[in-house]
């Protein structure tokens, strides 16, 4: 395994997110000014989708080497990792994000409607989500949650299965072997069979190590497959919204908001963890000057 390559893949993705956000924001400004056609906006949306697809493809290849790394990536902050779902963002969050965006401006438009100032136009909010679109979004939400739950259940099964068998039996076996060694140590000094018994125990422990390695490799491979399927669900949900349900202008707004949220959370959590690290350093220095006092960090 090569952690540096995994982190490099991630850095490349972050750079792509930043460039993509800039492009989406420019497209949004052009759309607001009436300078962008639907075809142009659709091209921007498609480029964004291809960026996601490319990242998922590269992750798929790397995760075959070490699927575990992507579930709690050491290149992310603890906070970032706390909001990961199966190594990435939770797909149903996209729908929640869209509900937030679609509500913007609606209150003011409803007030205009009630005041008789809207010329009979039914309010749709600043984003302009129609009734038909809301029905489709609601249906997609239900399907996505259902699929999320299925993948979460599979992770639970994996975790329970590996602990239940073979890891716990091996742990129990080692406990028994250790106890036997203590007993044997006393007996060995007075018995000519001690050497033979020690050789037998060593052989059994070697076999157990091979079994542990096989179990861990199997678990990692299963996590890798789960990551691939989770990425596919993330892609499918984003693509359904961006290319099937929303208009190009709406898709640009949604994708820009999603990238902005991702990059902001990353920046905020890194700043906080950098500050916490500096605090740790100060504590360390003061400890160095007094051998008898320990800092209470």
């Amino acid at each position, binding site marked *: 395994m090569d952690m540096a390559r995994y982190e490099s893949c991630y850095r490349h993705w972050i750079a792509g997110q930043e460039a993509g956000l800039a492009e989406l924001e420019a497209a949004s400004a052009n759309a607001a000014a009436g300078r962008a056609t639907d075809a142009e906006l659709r091209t921007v949306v498609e480029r964004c989708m291809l960026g996601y697809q490319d990242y998922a493809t590269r992750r798929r290849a790397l995760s075959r080497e070490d699927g575990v790394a992507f579930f709690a990536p050491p290149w992310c902050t603890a906070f970032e990792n706390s909001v990961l779902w199966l190594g990435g963002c939770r797909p*149903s969050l996209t729908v*929640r994000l869209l*509900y937030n965006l*679609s*509500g*913007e401006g*609606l*209150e003011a438009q*409803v007030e205009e*409607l*009630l005041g*008789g100032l*809207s010329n*009979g*136009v*039914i*309010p*749709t*909010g600043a984003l302009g*989500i129609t*009734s*038909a679109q*809301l*029905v*489709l979004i*609601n*249906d997609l*939400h*239900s399907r996505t*949650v259902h699929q999320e739950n299925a993948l979460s259940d599979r992770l639970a099964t994996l975790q329970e299965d590996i602990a239940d068998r073979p890891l716990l039996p091996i742990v129990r076996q080692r406990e028994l072997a250790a106890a036997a060694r203590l007993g044997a140590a006393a007996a060995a000094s007075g018995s000519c069979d001690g050497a033979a018994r020690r050789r037998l125990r060593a052989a059994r422990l070697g076999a157990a190590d091979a079994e542990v390695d096989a179990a861990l490799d199997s678990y990692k491979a299963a996590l890798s497959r789960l990551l691939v399927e989770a990425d596919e669900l993330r892609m499918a949900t984003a693509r359904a919204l961006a290319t099937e349900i929303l208009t190009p202008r709406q898709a640009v707004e949604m994708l820009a908001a999603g990238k902005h949220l991702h990059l902001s959370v990353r920046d905020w959590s890194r700043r906080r963890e950098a500050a916490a690290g500096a605090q740790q350093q100060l504590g360390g220095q003061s400890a160095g000057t007094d051998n008898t006092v320990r800092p209470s960090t």
Partner: protein
Amino acid sequence: MAEICCEEAKSTPATAVAAASVSATAAAAAAVAVASSALERRRRRLEMRRFRVAGDPEAPVAEDVRAAKRQRLARTLSSTCPDAGSGSGSDSDRPALPERLPRYGVTSVCGRRREMEDTVSVRPDFVPGTSKQHFFGVFDGHGCSHVATMCQNMMHEVVADEHRKADCSGEETAWKAVMERSFARLDEQAASWATSRSRDEPSCRCEQQKPLRCDHVGSTAVVAVVSPTHVVVANAGDSRAVLSRAGVPVPLSVDHKPDRPDELARIKAAGGRVIYWDGARVLGVLAMSRAIGDGYLKPFVSSEPEVTVTERTDDDECLILASDGLWDVVTNEMACEVVRACFHSNGPPAPAARANGAALRAAENGSAAAKGVSVEDSDKACSDAAMLLAKLALARRSADNVSVVVVDLRRGI
């Protein structure tokens, strides 16, 4: 002429709009041929519509649309074939079409929850043998969705059955008894659900837990029966029915909250307690004092509905039924204003507008949670109002499922 009509019928396009235009073309051709034949065909189409609505109230929307297409095609074929005479004979056996089917809009969205536990039931002409009585129900499940789904599927049948037994002629006391017995029957059905459930039905979340948690499941139920002269509302729980009369909201139900003084007194008299845990809760568990189901909280959580019988007036504008996902964030006043504004925006419904809106209404009413909704019965204004109220609830950060039914009660249009 007959062959041309048959060919035209065979090539009926899939979309409702195109189907409507084909029907219009057929009508035009009929008008050219014979005036009396045109009248005959119009009567048959009207009866076909009545038959579709009354014949299969259980069918979900998608099947309803397909059935409508099959009926339309079959009727067109039969009316242009040599045996049209015998068809005419069978037509005369059908009951007369009611003056007008109800106009309503329905929206039901999961919103910010992960589980959808709301259901909606709309059953026009739901009492067999009589007409002009229409059933509307909103059910907000908790703990699981099977009680709300059961109410969606069965409540209208039980009410119709009790109505028939009571030979109800509309008196307030008679309707109260009908509703109380209906709610009691659904409550018993919920209690026996775990043991009587068919093996073929998939088990749901509550049943997969050990010990069984089916007794921890329940649903609100707010039900309205709308007739030409009255609106009957029966409510258990904290969903709500509101009438808009001359712009003033008239509550037809009062939420059953555990800290409502009379409910609190009833619960205490029965030996229960109301504990405040993120709001008032019966035994610290349930945030409403009445519901269908919730066997383990009985007798403190009662399924007995409060029933109101309201005489309709010319000032009545609309009836709104909704779950607390709406009412928690939108006042009665605001809801009525929104509906009135949507009515105003759409103007009085015109016959010509109906065909144009068919495809949009099909999309708008596609939610699987609203069974019994007929695309052609839904009026654009009501649909706009229901959807706008749901959007407003989401914009105001409602944290629950949102279900809204808007019924147009205006007369003379």
